């Protein structure tokens, strides 16, 4: 690249969206997906685009690619790439830009790779197409790129099919594919949303490296403010099709001006803070549908500062904030709001005094047999192997206590939930609920009262309710089944009480699940779980599928009811920030075993188990004052059917001390009466650990 070329590039933005309006043609008429959108990205710059689902952020990316489908179109405005308007280009011109000048990485890596084509072939066609490279040269280039995205054994990787790779590997392949022709601009659309946190950390590291190494400009689309902080220089916040605030990371994160941005930050938990210091503040109301946006400011119905006659009149335009270069905000009253005085009432997390032991799990094992039915196995006498989904779990939970179970895919937390619910029987060990062993009592053999004491809240709001029946009848069914209510009138009354409990209007009883939002469905799921005389609730990632502004209120509701009913809550989650807010004690699981357990305080401060340490380091934190130690795990998660010998974590452990980790199962070290770590590390090493997350000075409101 010549120097004059570089100088030319530095003068003009790589990408510039000017007054962009995008719309979709639907049966109900034209829907404006993105309204009055401006964005510019300079060479080598990384810009974040953040917002909740349905705010139009992905539509922007597809519009840049000029791939809006047959019913999408650019209504007005321009998208200029290196000074040329992409909207005015024909297909042939676009083909020369796509994949060569602008490349994209997608949210679902598995679906984005062609299932019947080898990785190599999918990679080499890019440089062959765009640069006319020969097969050999293109092959070499592809291998180099695979190496640069830190995939081990690239030559082998070229010969694989997508389904033979893990999610993290697939996403690395897609990043390599995007970088093959050295694009000037890389669009990343939620590239880590489908991945586990520790895998995410690796990908984020890689993405940050790209911008530095190749001078590629990035547009990073995410709903996660923490990830934007870690990867970007500037940020644009979107709400309901509009950009509402734009500025440098520092400006927006430390001195946000738009009430929505403020609301977004207040509703996300930070792992450094606990619930009493920093109560969560949810945003009230719901995101408007594109067809029914309010007049004036789209956020005004949900805004505490909205003023009649000011906010609900005309379209509000972006306003530059005096004295802050590049910081603009779409708010009519941004100058009038006194943030220092604004102390919204946060969600109260009542402190419960814990009672006696309700749930005791003692050395519980759940093995799944995998039968090898091949001819060879039959001849050799058939060695059956086992998947050790749960390998000797021991813990207890008290009345009115929240115990969090933390771990990533394959750690065995879902199996634990299934065994507790009686959908599977434990292979070995005891599970006592209120003194009664239920480890080998399948749900069919439990009586209704027993079943009612142990219930579950599911993860996916779209699957948790049966789409064929009204919400009310589904709650009523539970009430009848557990013998809580008899007769039509009583059942109906109790059902209405349950709706009151989860703060939904009684009129919702006749609605079908599809007429409810995700958060409302989760509330019904919670009502259903608490319908019986519940002693223990298992909450399996109850809010992970919800938007951040909704997460806070659903979480608060859950812990509020739990407090009132003095229920034991087993909170299964991968989100350590949320765990810190919600739970009293934490179990960290890896490959079917508990590697560390302790009170929330003890888990979040040293000494750590090396895996906990890596998990903590991987959590993206949306706070500029926080400094973290970066630990990126290497290697892939071993298969539970063939776990490593010795310590299960030894294949990826950054603190591995030697042979002993591979041969001996780690001893359980009691750090304190409530805190234990399963690790070979010497006590003094453990004690000498430093905290992963270091909080800066408390932020003062801007």
């Amino acid at each position: 690249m010549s120097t004059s070329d570089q100088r030319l590039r530095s003068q003009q933005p790589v990408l510039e969206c000017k007054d962009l309006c995008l719309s979709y043609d639907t049966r109900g008429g034209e829907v404006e997906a993105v309204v009055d959108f401006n964005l510019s990205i300079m060479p080598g710059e990384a810009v974040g685009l953040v917002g909740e689902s349905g705010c139009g952020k992905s539509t922007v990316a597809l519009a840049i690619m000029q791939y809006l489908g047959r019913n999408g179109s650019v209504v007005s405005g321009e998208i200029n790439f290196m000074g040329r308007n992409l909207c005015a280009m024909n297909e042939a011109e676009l083909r020369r830009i796509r994949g060569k000048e602008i490349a994209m990485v997608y949210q679902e890596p598995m679906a984005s790779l062609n299932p019947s084509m080898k990785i190599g072939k999918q990679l080499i066609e890019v440089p062959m197409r765009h640069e006319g490279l020969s097969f050999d040269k293109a092959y070499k280039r592809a291998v180099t790129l695979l190496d640069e995205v830190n995939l081990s054994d690239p030559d082998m990787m070229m010969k694989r099919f997508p389904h033979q790779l893990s999610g993290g590997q697939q996403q690395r392949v897609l990043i390599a594919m995007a970088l093959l022709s050295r694009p000037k601009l890389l669009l990343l659309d939620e590239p880590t949303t489908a991945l586990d946190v520790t895998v995410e950390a690796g990908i984020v590291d890689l993405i940050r490296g790209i911008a530095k190494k190749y001078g590629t400009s990035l547009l990073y689309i995410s709903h996660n403010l923490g990830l934007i902080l870690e990867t970007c220089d500037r940020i644009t916040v979107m709400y309901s099709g509009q950009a509402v605030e734009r500025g440098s990371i520092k400006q927006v994160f430390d001195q946000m001006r738009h009430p929505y941005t403020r609301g977004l930050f207040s509703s996300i938990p930070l792992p450094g803070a606990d619930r009493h210091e920093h109560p969560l503040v949810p945003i009230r109301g719901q995101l408007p549908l594109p067809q029914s946006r309010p007049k004036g400011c789209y956020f005004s119905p949900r805004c505490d500062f909205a003023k009649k006659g000011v906010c609900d009149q005309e379209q509000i335009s972006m306003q530059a904030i005096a004295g802050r270069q590049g910081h603009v905000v779409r708010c009519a009253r941004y100058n009038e709001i006194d943030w220092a005085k604004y102390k919204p009432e946060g969600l109260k997390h009542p402190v419960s005094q814990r009672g006696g032991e309700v749930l005791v799990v003692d050395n519980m094992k759940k093995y799944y047999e995998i039968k090898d039915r091949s001819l060879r196995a039959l001849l050799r006498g058939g060695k059956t192997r086992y998947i050790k989904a749960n390998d000797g779990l021991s813990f207890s939970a008290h009345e009115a206590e929240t115990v969090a179970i933390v771990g990533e895919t394959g750690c065995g937390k879902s199996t634990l939930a299934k065994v507790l619910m009686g959908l599977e029987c434990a292979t070995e060990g005891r599970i006592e609920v209120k003194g009664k062993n239920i480890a080998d009592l399948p749900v069919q053999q439990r009586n209704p009262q027993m079943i009612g004491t142990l219930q579950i809240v599911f993860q996916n709001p779209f699957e948790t309710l049966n789409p064929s029946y009204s919400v009310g009848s589904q709650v009523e069914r539970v009430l009848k089944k557990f013998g809580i209510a008899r007769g039509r009138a009583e059942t109906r009354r109790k059902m209405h009480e349950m709706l009151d409990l989860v703060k939904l209007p009684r009129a919702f009883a006749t609605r079908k699940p599809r007429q409810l939002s995700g958060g409302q469905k989760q509330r019904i799921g919670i009502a259903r779980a608490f319908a019986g005389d519940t002693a223990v609730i298992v909450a399996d990632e109850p809010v992970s599928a919800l938007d951040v502004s909704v997460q806070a209120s659903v979480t608060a509701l859950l812990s509020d009811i739990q407090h009132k009913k003095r229920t034991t809550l087993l909170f299964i989650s991968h989100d350590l920030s949320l765990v810190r807010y919600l739970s009293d004690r934490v179990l960290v699981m890896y490959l079917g075993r508990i590697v560390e357990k302790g009170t929330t305080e003890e888990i979040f401060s040293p000494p750590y188990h090396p895996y906990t340490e890596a998990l903590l380091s991987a959590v993206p934190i949306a706070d500029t004052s926080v400094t973290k130690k970066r630990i990126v795990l290497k290697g892939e998660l071993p298969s539970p059917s063939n776990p490593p010998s010795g310590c299960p974590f030894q294949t990826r452990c950054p603190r591995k001390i030697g042979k002993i980790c591979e041969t001996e199962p780690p001893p359980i070290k009691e750090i304190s009466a409530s805190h234990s770590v399963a690790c070979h590390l010497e006590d003094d090493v453990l004690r000498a650990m430093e905290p992963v997350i270091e909080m800066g000075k408390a932020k003062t409101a801007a």
Partner: protein
Amino acid sequence: MTKLFFRRLLSIALIGLVISFLLFLIFESDKLEVAGKVLGAYSLPEQRLLWLEQNGYDEPFLLRYFQWLGKFLLGDWGVSLQYDTPVRPYLMDQLKNTAILGGLVFSLTLVFSLVLGVLSGVFEGRMTDRLVSGFAVLTTSVPEFASATLLAAVFVFWLGILPGTSSFQDGFRWIELVLPVTVLVIYNFGYYTRMTRASMAEVMTSQYVRTAILKGMRFRRVVLNHALRNALIAPFTVMVLQLNYLLSGVIVVEVFFGYKGFGKMLYDAALFGDLYVLEAATMIAVAIAVMSQFISDVGYALLNPRIRFS
């Protein structure tokens, strides 16, 4: 992969065995009726008993089944009661005729429906698609005996340019194949086309096709290299499976046009009660069906790397 191959082979063989046993049960569990069929309706009960004794029918049922199966596998299929001729050469002759008909129909349908189905799936919602889809739904709605009637009315009785029967009275003539082949292609074409279209349209909206387009690939290359293979997995397997249904169409068409083939033979044998022809013909039909299922299964695994490498 070899494991999968042998496992499918084993399961197919098992299915074949079960079906052959069922057939034997239907045909030969009533010994007296067998004797009645062989000796004629007016034979005396004593004659029938004597015949049964002479022909080894006193053996246990299971043993008889295995003897029968063995004889079938070795090619000893008995003598036709209707024509008094050994079944095997007669049947093979008819089978050859049907193979000509079926082969032509299958390959023509395959070419037409794959080409048109892919085109209409790629250009979903456009004019090409609407024309092809409309034509396809129309042709699937006209069963063989109806389209045979309509075509015969036009080309045989009205225009008089095609022969109305295909019995090859004056030796083999291509022109006599035109109507039977057309009728079968028309009916099967619609189903295959609709399926290919659906599969192609689905693949065209998949995320990996989007990836390929946004890599800057030419549209033709996206369709041919990325979409086609994935889109053809489902139609291919179903088409091979449909060989089974093609056979029933073949029976109708052969009866309608008097075509001397396997289907007509089977039909005649069933109506006449020509036991040994019927036994052999059903066994052959089942063998074809089972083999097509096997090919379809293995083909699916071969086309789909997710199964091939797992």
